């Protein structure tokens, strides 16, 4: 709503952001800099690493988390200002297969079993990687978890799960729709219903030490240029 409004003085903002937001935020950051003159420096890493760093007093102005759990965690720890927390984007999960095996997949045990053959299902590590956790909840709710539990290939992050499928190392994987959208070597073979898992959200917040006007960048993401950047990265903006 306040898109285009000049930031109040800060020359440079430091933003800690989940690695999966890299494309979207970098594009938005450039746009922001050219409109406001405020340069944004990003530190991309795993959400968990960033969260712990914020707890340890990292000199960030803003934190973009890839899931709500870690945002709650840092808010509780007093590392971000709870009043500033806002969801900037949402995402959904899809089944992907290597590009040459793109026939649609029915979401039932036998179809998945058949498609896997002897292979594995690449997902994010369900305990630690958010994408993995959402996938587990969705499959559990869909009654499919027990069918695949023994055939998982839990990856350190979704990108690697994606790359694994792209290279044909696994016949199937579950990744974010945003990832699938930008990888040419995979095909989306099934969408996972959004109601089968908690909403996949990207909350952002400012730290207590944030420079004045830092929250403006969060607002900027909700404006037209921000939305454009999010959409082109395969994410769904939030109003």
């Amino acid at each position: 709503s306040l898109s285009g409004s000049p930031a109040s003085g800060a020359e440079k903002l430091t933003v800690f952001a989940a690695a999966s937001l890299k494309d979207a935020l970098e594009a938005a950051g450039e746009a922001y800099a050219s409109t406001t003159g405020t340069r944004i420096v990003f530190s991309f890493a795993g959400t968990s690493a960033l969260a712990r760093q914020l707890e340890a007093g990292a000199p960030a102005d803003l934190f973009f988390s890839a899931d709500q759990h870690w945002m709650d965690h840092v808010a509780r720890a007093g590392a971000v200002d709870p009043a500033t927390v806002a969801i900037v984007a949402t995402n959904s999960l899809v089944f992907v297969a290597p590009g040459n095996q793109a026939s649609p997949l029915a979401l039932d045990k036998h179809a998945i079993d058949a498609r896997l053959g002897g292979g594995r299902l690449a997902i994010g590590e369900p305990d630690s990687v958010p994408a993995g956790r959402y996938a587990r909840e969705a499959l559990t709710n869909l009654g499919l978890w027990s069918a695949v539990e023994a055939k998982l290939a839990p990856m350190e992050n979704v990108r690697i799960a994606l790359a694994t499928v792209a290279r044909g190392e696994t016949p199937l994987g579950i990744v974010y729709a945003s990832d699938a959208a930008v990888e040419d070597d995979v095909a989306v073979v099934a969408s996972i219903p959004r109601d089968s898992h908690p909403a996949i959200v990207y909350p952002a917040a400012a730290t207590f030490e944030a420079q004045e006007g830092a929250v403006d960048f969060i607002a900027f993401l909700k404006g037209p240029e921000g939305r454009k950047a999010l959409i082109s990265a395969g994410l769904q903006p939030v109003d």
Partner: protein
Amino acid sequence: MPSLDPAEWQALSLTLKVAATALIVTLPVAILAGYVLARLRFPGHGILNGLIHLPLVLPPVVTGYVLLILFGRRGPIGSFLEETFGITFAFNWTGAALAAGVMAFPLMVRPIRLAIEAVDPKLEEAAATLGSPRVVVLAVVTLPLALPGILAAAILGFAKAMGEFGATITFVSNIPGETRTLALALYTATQTPDGELAAFRLTILSTVVAFAALIASEVVARRLARAVKGGA
């Protein structure tokens, strides 16, 4: 520390299996590479030396990714091995051992090379005057005298293989009982908002195993030193 839970046992025994396999398979290659770098001068010397050090210089995730490309089931080497010998690395504990071995390799080659370079060529000359062919000199003079270095290499290699994480998780995933070593389990725990206790237990466990391995190696090293330096 209370007794280990089954997942911890599993991670522990897997870690030992993976690290030991990595060590046993890699050590001979590392010895060969150390010898070649120490004693031979040839055009590709610098390139070989550089290639050996690469896994150290690149982030482990990249090494893991390269392994995935080469040794995955669709990779040129992986598919060949699978078709010809039925060896699969992908998502298998053998792949974890491969990743650990590759990451440990540069750490092993250096001390071995150092120790071989320190072997007095005059002794090799003496062996030659007694009729020993080059390989025999290597086997009965050079390598035995380089044994302290080989042992140091084994220790570094084993420790690194135990702790390897980045390349392993990238290459063969984090499958409990198959590829989830102590290091991966520990990493997983740190990535979980309330994983502190689990992480702490696994840290202690890793530390204890590492200390045990180190102490054993020190005992062996001291015996070796005594054997070489004289005495009855």
